[in-house]
């Protein structure tokens, strides 16, 4: 049972088993659905930890377990390009990147499922929720473990589907249904590019296996222009899934889903799948300098847009969503600058502390029934000591305060960017400054607001059972301790374990960067403190601010307006033209005119049938005479 392959099968199949068994549970037994989900995710998490411990010394890696699936015979598709043994395979691939990611995915899934037991305790459609969550976890593990691009694409679509289902979980709410649709459509736009890229790559290169996608062999096989094209097409999929500019608009709206879903799917795992793919297929992207430059530019735009929009939001989940967008941008920037190690390292620290932040937000929302940070403050957010402590841990980790996890990974990104290009370095620095600013703002507003509407007696009476308290506290505590701890894995105390694993090199702590970070934290925190030390005043000021910057941020850089213009004006007028064409030309001119002319012809012909015997007779005679003349002398006609 403990061979790597069987462990892989457990990781892959436990969630789908949970999904199926929840589906077939009889109605009376639906109550145990959360238990099924939690147990199966626990199985997957422990299997992945076991797998991690087997391979922790990094021998025999990378290892593949593959099986041929489709053999494409020579010359069947495209006689000039396909090599002889173009075979599509299915299978698992294990290497350090996968191991790290699969551990991250399964552990966070487990914690989120546990927390969901608390968060969704009163929801009547709990079984559906846990079924979808398990299905998501199945798709996500499939995505992470897959050995080739096509298999990745299949699971990529499945996570997109589950994300759609879970964003629209409360589908009776109009806004949730719209948000789900928006996420689905924007993701499809990106995935179209991804799919085209995969097809092109297979046709021209003949293999989709990650182990074959080395930049040297790609450069030998394909021209630079083609490589750039394929790279950018595949990157489009990443842009959709990882909410990169200009496709980022779906992620903040996706917060309509239940909060644990946002923690799992829309911050820790699914949106990180894009970043994962970038480093998984890094050979493909790094084969062309232009592709990497596009990645870098898109990443920095995303980081900037996300961070600046996070500064004015009032909704705690929206703040975190925009913060996720900007952090994803930072990861993509790091990979664009040529260092997948930094990107993935930030991905893993970010996954833990952002999941922690979202779960904390969920704890607030569940308790105070509001998303607005001012409301939470007024209703006594600071009284919930456990949540406030974890909020602080999450936020300082996000800001990159040493020695929290975010510090190590963010520093690594800044260092990479500094070596690469000073302009992008300053973009990242500015983004970090904004991050500190909005984190401090969030904290101050919750913590310093005067409690004016304490929760009423009934709210206090609503005391939770031990199981609920347990399910609320354990995930928060575990995630918090992981985000405290995980950063140290990159320090000399732990022999740079993560970095060695990811194939990077250790870097000494750079005093200059340390100073930059300190200044950033002081500046951002100070600015936020000056503005928000009195949250009530700041609120009125925020409401009344009508400056151009505020308007620009309020309208989200007009990106949503642009999409609205695209759909409402462009698409609808195109549809109107097509509608007119269909109604007048196709239907009116072709279909209706055909039937009308047949009717008219019939009416003319019916004039012959006038009912007068002698007219019929003369007609018959006339025709008879003509026939007779023809018979007598055929040549005369």
């Amino acid at each position: 049972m403990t061979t790597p392959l069987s462990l892989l099968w457990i990781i892959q199949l436990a969630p789908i088993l949970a999904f199926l068994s929840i589906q077939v549970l009889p109605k009376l037994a639906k109550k145990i659905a959360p238990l099924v989900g939690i147990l199966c995710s626990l199985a997957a998490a422990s299997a992945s930890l076991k797998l991690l411990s087997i391979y922790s010394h990094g021998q025999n890696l990378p290892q593949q377990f593959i099986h041929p699936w489709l053999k494409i015979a020579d010359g069947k598709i495209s006689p000039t390009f396909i090599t002889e043994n173009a075979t599509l395979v299915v299978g698992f691939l294990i290497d350090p990147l996968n191991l790290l990611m699969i551990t991250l995915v399964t552990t966070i899934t487990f914690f989120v499922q546990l927390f969901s037991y608390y968060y969704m305790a009163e929801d009547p459609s709990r079984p559906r929720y846990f079924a979808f969550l398990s299905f998501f976890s199945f798709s996500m593990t499939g995505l992470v473990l897959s050995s080739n691009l096509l298999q990745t694409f299949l699971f990529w679509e499945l996570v997109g589907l589950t994300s759609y289902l879970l964003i629209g979980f409360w589908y009776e709410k109009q806004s949730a249904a719209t948000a789900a649709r928006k996420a689905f459509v924007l993701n499809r736009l990106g995935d179209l590019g991804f799919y085209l890229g995969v097809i092109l790559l297979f046709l021209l290169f003949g293999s989709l296996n990650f182990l074959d996608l080395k930049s040297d062999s790609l450069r030998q096989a394909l021209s630079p222009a083609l490589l750039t094209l394929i790279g950018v097409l595949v990157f489009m999929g990443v842009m959709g899934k990882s909410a990169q500019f200009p496709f980022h608009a779906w992620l903040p709206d996706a917060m309509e889903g239940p909060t644990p879903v946002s923690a799992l799917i829309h911050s820790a795992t699914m949106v990180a799948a894009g970043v994962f793919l970038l480093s998984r297929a890094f050979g493909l992207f790094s084969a062309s300098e232009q592709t990497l430059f596009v990645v870098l530019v898109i990443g920095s735009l995303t980081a900037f847009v996300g961070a600046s929009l996070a500064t004015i939001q009032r909704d705690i989940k929206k703040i975190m969503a925009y913060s996720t967008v900007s952090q994803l941008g930072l990861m993509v920037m790091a990979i664009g600058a040529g260092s997948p190690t930094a990107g993935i390292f930030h991905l893993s620290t970010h996954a833990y502390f952002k999941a922690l932040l979202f779960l904390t937000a969920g704890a607030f929302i569940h308790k105070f029934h509001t998303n607005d940070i001012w409301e939470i403050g007024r209703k006594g957010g600071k009284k919930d000591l456990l949540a406030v402590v974890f909020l602080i841990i999450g936020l300082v980790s996000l800001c990159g305060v040493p020695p929290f996890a975010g510090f190590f990974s963010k520093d690594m990104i800044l260092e990479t960017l500094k070596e690469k290009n000073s302009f992008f370095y300053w973009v990242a620095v500015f983004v970090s400054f904004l991050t500190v600013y909005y984190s401090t703002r969030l904290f101050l507003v919750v913590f310093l607001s005067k409690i004016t509407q304490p929760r009423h007696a009934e709210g206090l009476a609503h005391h939770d059972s031990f199981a609920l308290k347990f399910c609320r506290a354990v995930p928060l505590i575990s995630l918090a301790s992981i985000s405290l701890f995980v950063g140290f894995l990159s320090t000399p105390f732990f022999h740079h374990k993560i970095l060695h694993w990811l194939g990077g090199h250790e870097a000494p702590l750079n005093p200059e960067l340390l100073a930059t970070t300190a200044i950033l934290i002081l500046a951002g925190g100070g600015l936020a403190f000056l503005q928000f030390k009195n949250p009530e005043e700041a609120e009125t000021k925020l409401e009344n601010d009508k400056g151009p910057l505020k308007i620009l941020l309020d309208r989200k850089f007009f990106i949503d307006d642009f999409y609205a213009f695209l759909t409402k004006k462009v698409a609808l007028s195109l549809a109107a033209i097509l509608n007119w064409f269909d109604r007048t030309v196709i239907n009116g001119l072709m279909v209706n005119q055909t039937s009308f002319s047949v009717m008219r012809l019939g009416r003319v012909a019916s004039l012959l049938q006038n009912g007068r015997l002698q007219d019929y007779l003369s007609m018959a005679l006339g025709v008879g005479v003509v026939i007779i003349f023809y018979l007598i002398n055929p040549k005369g006609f």
Partner: protein
Amino acid sequence: MSQSLQSYLVVSSALFSIGIFGLLMRRNLVAILISLELVLNSASINFLAFNKFCMPNKVTGQVFVIFIIALAAAEVCIALSLILWLSRRKNSINIEDAKELKG
């Protein structure tokens, strides 16, 4: 005029033309019926004439004519009954009044 084939044919075609003329121009159904008889008779004359002048030893034409006469009798029988029925129904035997079957 001598008794040649042509003279018979002239008589029969005269009869035929008169019959067709009557068929097309008369409005009275009985007159149309009579014209039809003329057309049939002209055909009978043709049969007899050709029988007499072309194959005098055989009686094929005469047999045909007997058939035509029988047919004409049957036809008159049916047509007259139809006309009678029409005159009862419409109180007229004008063909203009019987055109319900127009398209």
